[in-house]
């Protein structure tokens, strides 16, 4: 019975993969036909041309440096936002006053458009750390809100049990709150990772720090290189997806180790 279920699951996974690949192939075909119809590579290059350009990027030199430049800054912003968001959520859960006092700051961060923040950040800092600052600001409220809601959703029955057995804050944190926030934290990270990349690269396009991926996208616009723009977009998608998968895998491993405490 179990074996049958496993086989069915594997089959359904394979089927889903097949479905997705088919949909992708059709989308590429539509793109190819549209590009051929328009016949204007500056407006819309063919997917084959973009892939060709994408492969050329690797032999041109400078690509790994650009990836490293943007990746390190966005990663620093992400992990900074994650740590500060976690810390503030824990403090807010422990003190209603802290939660109330933090509300205006978080409301401001959530409400102000990214572009305004980028310009402000350019006034306050140099262009170099712009992606770091913007990624941090994108990640912080998402992590804070999800984790705080997760802590507040802790099972009251389990909290009573912890009270009766006189468990101190450390034990409550380890055994009760961390498992409770696991799911909201992972989903917050999934959303925040995507946003950190999108906002981080957008900030680089506005701030144009030397040697960044955003700068290269900006140059593509100036030089009207649509194929290069799309090839670099492919690079960004690949790097951000890989980064997202690695971070989530690392976090799941951490939670698994935590449960073995």
């Amino acid at each position: 019975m179990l074996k049958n279920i496993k086989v069915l699951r594997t089959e359904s996974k394979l089927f889903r993969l097949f479905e997705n690949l088919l949909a992708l192939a059709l989308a590429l075909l539509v793109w190819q036909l549209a590009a051929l119809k328009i016949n204007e590579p500056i407006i819309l290059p063919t997917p084959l041309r973009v892939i060709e350009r994408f492969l050329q990027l690797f032999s041109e030199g400078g690509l790994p440096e650009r990836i490293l430049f943007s990746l390190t800054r966005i990663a620093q912003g992400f992990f900074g936002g994650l740590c500060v968001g976690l810390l503030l959520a824990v403090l807010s859960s422990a003190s209603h006053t802290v939660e109330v006092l933090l509300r205006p700051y978080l409301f401001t961060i959530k409400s102000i458009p990214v572009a305004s923040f980028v310009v402000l950040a350019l006034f306050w800092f140099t262009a170099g750390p712009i992606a770091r600052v913007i990624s941090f600001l994108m990640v912080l409220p998402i992590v804070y809100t999800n984790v705080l809601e997760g802590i507040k959703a802790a099972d009251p029955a389990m909290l009573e049990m912890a009270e009766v057995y006189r468990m101190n804050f450390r034990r409550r944190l380890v055994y009760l709150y961390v498992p409770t926030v696991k799911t909201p934290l992972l989903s917050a990270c999934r959303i925040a990772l995507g946003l950190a990349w999108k906002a981080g690269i957008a900030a680089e396009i506005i701030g144009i720090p030397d040697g960044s991926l955003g700068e290269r996208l900006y140059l593509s616009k100036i030089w009207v290189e649509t194929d290069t723009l799309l090839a670099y977009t492919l690079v960004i998608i690949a790097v951000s997806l890989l980064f997202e998968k690695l971070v989530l895998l690392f976090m799941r491993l951490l939670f698994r180790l935590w449960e073995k405490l």
Partner: protein
Amino acid sequence: MEENKIKITDLSKAFGEKQVLSHLSLSFEKGKISCLMGASGSGKTTLLRILLGLEEADGGTLEGIEKPIVCLFQEDRLFEDFSVLTNIRAASPKASPQEILLHLTELELGEELKRPVRKLSGGMKRRVALIRAVLAPSETLLLDEPFKGLDEEMAKKAADYLLRHQNGRTVLLVTHEKKDAERLGAKTLYLPSPA
């Protein structure tokens, strides 16, 4: 007041319109096992919650109850993602793994020490929750349906285990089953049926 008794006098508790306990008075012996019986809705669990300090009574007095008080709740309330050992040590940090293993072995859970609780059966979880309550430092032990979900043979083993490890503590056990009181040789107290 009698020195060796825990005395509940004129205790009342209502939740909104619903009167759960009405002028309840009863007493039970310190250092002994007593069973509290009553129909569903008679306020057994509410009384335990008042004794634990988790609910406040609307009126009446409690005298002679010794702290710390530990409770085996009607639900197991275990940390599902963590091992049996971790669950017990979270409540009794001073208990050594060897001591915990001995207790687990007494209730046929010796093999489950490092197993995550979520992988245990309902009866196994109940036994883990019972061991956690027994091992936790306390002067008073409140047990709400401790043998729920255990088969006849295991319920008897759990009762014997409880008797072996009572260690002079006051135990108040809430149950629907008269035979639970008989197994433990405990005095039975009855709560009046709800109006």
